[in-house]
């Protein structure tokens, strides 16, 4: 259990409900850290607000519990200020996909070197069970008492379309895959995204005949298909299934904080050369001022 060094063990047991998948995902993450030899003194883990975002309370490194939805924006500041640090975001589906959706697509678009792990339990756990953008269609939650009217949503597809250069999905049942994908994400140079389906027996499960965490894990086991296998299946066969696996992995796209530093090197070099340049004439003649 060498990986336990990544936890603030003095603060365990954690606050999560019995059988909450978030603890399992946290376990997979620290094993991936161990595997990747993550340096606890050069890593910052950033979360938002939610049960999932409480992970940063237990990780034994620099951690920050920010405001709801904004983890990636804080992380962007940290990464740009200290590109040498490993920056990881861990947060929930509500946090990253609902209120934080814009920061997610823009972090992906910039390909900034942050590893983002979405603990997707398809519900707002912390606030007691309202629907999230990832709640399955038809499910009952406290804000969809008559069955959820919205469609199912594929977050990995969105993040990939936004420009992420590493994208994978696993579940709290598939711990070994999770460890593998998170390790690869941590090694990736660019924006890497791993969605991990996690169970919330207390709110999603209880209202949808899966009050037992074991039932929820069986649900993950029985309704997921590996990407490779899915590619060989017909659409009808995939009905109701969630595809897991590595969806996207590309290199050669410049990582943003490095690309920025390269520009800085170019510009500040030029600046040194042409010493004494004044900033006084920044406004081009004829440029009129600014509005709204």
């Amino acid at each position: 259990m060498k990986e336990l060094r990544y936890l603030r063990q003095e603060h365990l047991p954690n606050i999560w409900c019995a059988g909450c998948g978030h603890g399992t995902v946290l376990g997979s993450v620290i094993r991936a850290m161990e595997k990747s030899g993550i340096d606890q003194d050069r890593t910052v883990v950033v979360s938002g607000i939610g049960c999932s975002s409480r992970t940063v309370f237990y990780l034994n490194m620099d951690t920050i519990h920010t405001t709801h939805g904004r983890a990636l924006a804080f992380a962007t500041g940290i990464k740009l200020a200290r590109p040498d640090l490993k920056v990881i975001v861990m947060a929930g589906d509500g946090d990253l996909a609902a209120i934080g959706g814009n920061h997610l697509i823009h972090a992906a678009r910039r390909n900034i070197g942050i590893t983002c792990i979405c603990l997707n339990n398809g519900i707002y756990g912390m606030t007691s069970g309202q629907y999230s953008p990832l709640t399955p269609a038809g499910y009952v939650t406290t804000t969809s008492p008559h069955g959820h009217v919205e469609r199912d949503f594929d977050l990995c597809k969105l993040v990939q379309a936004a420009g992420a250069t590493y994208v994978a999905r696993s579940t709290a049942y598939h711990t070994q895959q999770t460890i593998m994908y998170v390790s690869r994400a941590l090694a990736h140079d660019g924006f890497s995204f791993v969605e991990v389906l996690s169970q919330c027996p207390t709110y999603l499960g209880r209202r949808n005949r899966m009050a037992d965490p074991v039932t929820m894990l069986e649900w993950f086991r029985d309704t997921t298909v590996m990407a490779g296998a899915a590619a060989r299946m017909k659409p009808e066969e995939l009905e109701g299934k969630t595809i897991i696996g590595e969806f996207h992995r590309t290199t050669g796209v410049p990582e943003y904080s490095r690309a920025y530093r390269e520009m800085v090197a170019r510009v500040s070099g030029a600046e040194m050369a042409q010493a004494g340049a004044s900033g006084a004439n920044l406004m081009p003649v004829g440029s009129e001022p600014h509005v709204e």
Partner: protein
Amino acid sequence: MAPRKARAIEVNTSWCKKCGICVAFCGPEALRVNGTGMPEVVALDACTLCMLCELRCPDFAIHVVEDKEEAAARDATAAAHAG
């Protein structure tokens, strides 16, 4: 290669929340739920060291200790093969 063996399976009772996940997915049924709701070992020998109980436990509360001698032997074998 000799099959791997568990020397012990430790449960941290102050962290365990009795969720039952470890027991439910132990293929060889090496574990069961005891009277207090916690997992307990019923067949250490049956344990295949798949580690899934430990990997899936949301509370870092169960630890499968591999038999060191076995492990050492195995490592030696592996090293030989690798060489």
